[in-house]
């Protein structure tokens, strides 16, 4: 049985209670994208300002559990100010950590996880398969927003 401590690490609870980059940005200039977790009703609303192929600003609102909220908060820190290409790279590494898109066998590269910084706190989610969707919701929403901005 997976342990709850793996899931609810301190960083996660902190980001849940004090979400970074929370709020909204007027649109335009912001791009707005909504994501749903159809199975549980969680909703995330992303406000993105993209300038010169970089994520100049990002804000997040919505409703969600500790995992989806902290994942959104951590994501916003990880991509804010970054070129889109770099954001995609983080996204890819994050998905591998969640066991999606990876080798069939699972376990992500250690180096990969390390490079994620604070985001690595979400690694424990993998042991709780149902919660993976919570963790990936903001990321999938981000990738949908970027895809749309690219046309």
């Amino acid at each position, binding site marked *: 049985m997976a342990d709850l401590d793996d899931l*609810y690490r301190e960083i996660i609870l902190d980001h849940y209670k004090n979400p970074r980059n929370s709020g909204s940005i007027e649109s335009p200039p912001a791009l707005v994208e909504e994501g749903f977790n159809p199975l549980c009703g969680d909703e995330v609303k992303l406000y993105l300002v993209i300038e010169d192929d970089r994520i100049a600003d990002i804000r997040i609102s919505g409703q969600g*559990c500790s*995992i989806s*909220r902290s994942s959104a908060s951590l994501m916003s820190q990880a991509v804010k100010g970054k070129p889109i290409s770099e954001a995609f790279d983080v996204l890819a590494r994050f998905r591998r950590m969640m066991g999606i898109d990876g080798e069939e066998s699972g376990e992500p590269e250690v180096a990969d996880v390390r490079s994620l910084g604070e985001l690595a706190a979400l690694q424990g989610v993998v042991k*709780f398969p149902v919660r993976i969707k919570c963790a990936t919701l903001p990321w999938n929403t981000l990738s949908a927003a970027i895809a749309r901005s690219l046309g």
Partner: protein
Amino acid sequence: MASTIRSAMTADTLDVRVIRKDFPIYQQPYEDKPFIYLDSAASSQRPEQVMQAMDEYYRRFHSNVHRGVYTLAEEATARYEAARVKVGRFLGAKDPSREVVFTKNATEAFNLVAQGLGRVLLNQDSVIVLTEMEHHANLVPWLILQEQIGFTIRYITFDSDGYLVLDELDSILDGASLLGVTMMSNVLGTVNPIAELAAAAHRHGALFLADAAQFAPHFEVDVSGLDIDLLCLTGHKMLGPTGIGALWARSEILDRMTPFLGGGDMIADVRLDGFVASEIPYKFEAGTPPIAEAVGWASAIDYLESVGMGSLRAHDLKLTEYAIANLTGSLGSAFKLYGPKVAADRGGVVSFDLAGVHPHDVAQVLDQHGVCVRAGHHCAKPLMRQIGTAATARASFYLYNDEADIDALVAALEDAYALFN
């Protein structure tokens, strides 16, 4: 077995220890931790008797129904049709052998109503009335039909205590062709005033459609006494197998309805350019039906009837009262109950919010204690919007639950609260 069950009751109380002996899942828990199952509103567990009935069917009687001349096929057909009559009688149907259509679940039954009845009853000028506390099963089929043929849907709202607001019922029903209402909300627990609503519908010339998915497992249903026109229910929430549900409707209504699913067994004749539908109820049962599932469901109804729906309700009520009292007592203002405060106005379903802890996290921490509750929108998103949240946690009770289960729930919730606050 029936005698065991009867002896389990004294003065309207069930002896849960005796009941649990019939439920294998309590004998051999999946994990090495307590098994506190409080999610019967999503799906109930099955007693040994139901599994044995299905097993016996497969081991000794299986063959396809309706089309066989040989004895085994006759026997399978007889058992399948006997299950139909059993479901009909359980609901108080006047003509049980013709008025029950087997479907794969309650959801399919609602789709059958929307497409089979909706297409003959409604056009773009029509109005139907639903409530804001409906399960998606009684919403989405209508939204799909609305896209296809166009008509107006009006909604009855509910108040902050989870009661339907019926002050303006007459004006809402004015000109309506159908009123569809859940008999018991799967989120709020509210038991709605069905006889009153059916009478109001009929005053306005509207048909009355009832969602009994949550109600039928817990209360006696009497479609004739309540003057219901159509009713949907599902087997897996009432000790029966997955893969089966039913639409009950008065035979005149079924006669009017067009077929929905097309295929074998529902036709009188097929030509390359058209077909003639068979009689009710067969014209709605296309293809090989859930035969073993019907047999299992019939056995579940036997079980429920031997327990007695009255005793079952008394048991639910006792647990609901105990739960509300203890949750409020232990968690104080951190515990927010949705739905009626009065246990007598609700079924054995308790949705709540725990301050500072998202329902998903509640369910996760509870799972660590072996307590199984549901968290989410419970397939009732419009209801959730109305109560101003995206998700709730929900504990639900059935005949195999007891006060100790609720004590475990309370203790686990205290733990969750402490972890997050």
